[in-house]
């Protein structure tokens, strides 16, 4: 561990994950740089202060899980469940993200500059997710609240069993899941799309090129079609 130009550097080649997370939990702010993550799991999880954290390399499962207030940037790819249950703050992945990115997130922003895999935004509960590339199948499965914006394509069964989350896709959607339908894009949606792009630092994608998807609300109550 060292301090370089006011930035706390922690090298995971010589420091344990436990020591890293314990230090980040004790911190109340400041800039942090994590070296040699080497695909390790649960890096920078449970942060609860306005820290500014740069991770120099690839991370494994659950990086920045349950983050509150902190900004975490992954300068590499992220494994399963990056920013799972994100509460607030911002998580940026420079590379690609594995499945269940942003799962169950309740607030904050997850920005993925590459592609994201299956189940992006599964059970999302208020998080905003912006993917510069494409996402895999079952994106926004049982998505409750928040917005998922995909600049590329979406795989099959997008928005299956969706509740009130708002989905925006610029490219092709392979198929929609149960109870997910395309909806009209109105001014307020274009404004939200523009704001999401801006928050994710994407300036070269026109807001007007997105289509909107959401719940048909046909699964909100158990129907009995053949009752008498």
């Amino acid at each position, binding site marked *: 561990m060292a301090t370089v130009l006011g930035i706390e550097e922690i090298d995971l080649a010589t420091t344990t*994950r436990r020591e890293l997370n314990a230090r980040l939990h004790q911190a109340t702010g400041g800039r942090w740089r994590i070296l040699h993550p080497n695909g390790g799991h649960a890096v920078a999880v449970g942060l609860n202060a306005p820290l500014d954290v740069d991770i120099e390399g690839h991370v494994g499962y*659950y990086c920045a*899980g349950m983050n509150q207030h902190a900004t975490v940037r992954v300068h590499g790819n992220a494994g399963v469940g990056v920013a799972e249950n994100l509460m607030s703050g911002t998580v940026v992945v420079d590379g690609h993200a594995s499945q269940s990115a942003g799962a169950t997130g309740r607030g904050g922003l997850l920005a993925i500059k590459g592609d994201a895999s299956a189940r992006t935004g599964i059970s999302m509960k208020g998080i905003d997710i912006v993917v510069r590339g494409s996402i895999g199948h079952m994106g926004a499965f*049982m998505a409750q609240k928040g917005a998922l914006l995909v600049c590329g394509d979406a795989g099959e069964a997008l928005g299956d069993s969706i509740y009130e989350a708002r989905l925006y896709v610029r490219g092709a959607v392979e198929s929609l899941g149960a109870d997910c339908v395309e909806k009209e894009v109105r001014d307020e949606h274009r404004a939200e799309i523009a704001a999401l792009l801006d928050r994710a630092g994407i300036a070269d994608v026109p807001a007007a090129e997105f289509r909107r998807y959401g719940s048909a609300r046909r699964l*909100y109550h158990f129907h*009995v079609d053949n009752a*008498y």
Partner: protein
Amino acid sequence: MLRESATFDRATIAEIHRAAQTGIYDIRGAGAKRRLPHFDDLLFLGASVSRYPLEGYRERCDTDVVLGDRFASEPLHLKIPVTIAGMSFGALSAPAKEALGRGASALGTSTTTGDGGMTPEERLHSETLIYQLLPSRYGMNPDDLRRADAIEVVIGQGAKPGGGGMLLGQKISDRVAEMRDLPPGIDQRSACRHPDWTGPDDLEIKIEELREITDWRKPIFVKIGASRTYYDVALAVKAGADVVVLDGMQGGTAASQEVFIEHVGIPILAAIPHAVESLQELGMHRKVQLIVSGGIRSGADVAKALALGADACSIGVAAIHALGDNSPEYAEEYEQLGTAAGFYDDWHEGRDPAGISTQDDELAARLDPELGGRRLANYLRAMVLEAQTLARACGKSHVRNLEPEDLVALTIEAAAMARVPLAGTSWIPGR
């Protein structure tokens, strides 16, 4: 002469009529109602010439239990081996959750949140509170993880192993909806799988994440519905569980399909020996504690479960009854609901006259949480006294010292499942 069919009895015919009218499966609360091999099929031998009993009232017979000392720096120290199972705010009213906390705390034991998050009332009134991490993750947040005394990763429930949950719209009040990030009044579904892990290797990583978030302070429980118990317990231990919670098919639910409740999973009596065998083969029996639930009603049930190798028991349905559910006090209102005191199981409908399984403010106000807490505390006291009495009769100075050797079975089925001799013989089927 009227002769009722054993195959098409009145309940079966009524269910056929109901299905033919509605076209949908029956949903209800509580647990399996069918007759199952259970603790009633076991007896304690007691002491005699060959065994030395303890004096029934005065000699010491301890009941405390430590849970979660495998990895956690802050394991739980409970005064009695009976805990309160996870039941959600949403399924239960806020006064009911508070009453559970009050009752459990009075006896020095724990209560558990449920599928819907942690309410301030239950945290305030629960000295020891276990916070569930369920597939739905409703209300999940790291502040509550840190506020909890232990974390329970719920993989399954005895009433419905492999199934998700549901909470019908009439119970999705504004407060419940807000806690779950859902629109009010909709029929809510809870997923059957966790959203960010699949399988035991992932579970190990998930548990590590929870430990990191809570700085390795909190015990991590893993709850499974009783089915392939031997393997599930082994995998939970491998994944790093401090405690395994095993829920048999008699375990309750607030709302599930009847077909699930009655036809999926195995009785707790059959599951405990599998779990204990699994732990023993791994050299982890008593190191990873085993909590069992599903039809625990009395101190006798507790003592028998401990004798089979459990470290503690957990109660859900019994605790609800202790609060006053199905009380004859509300006989007329049960009748208006088309049922009767002692039979009421439509806990999903939110019209519980006792104010327990409801989100209706007027009904909920009928349950005085202080009185409910005292009832539960009394019930727990009685259970513990019963378990101690039986343990002393078997010569044990601590209830956990009860052992299979103290038991015999009344039926061949129970003998085979519990792996104790059929009464009057030395025969254990399969041995």
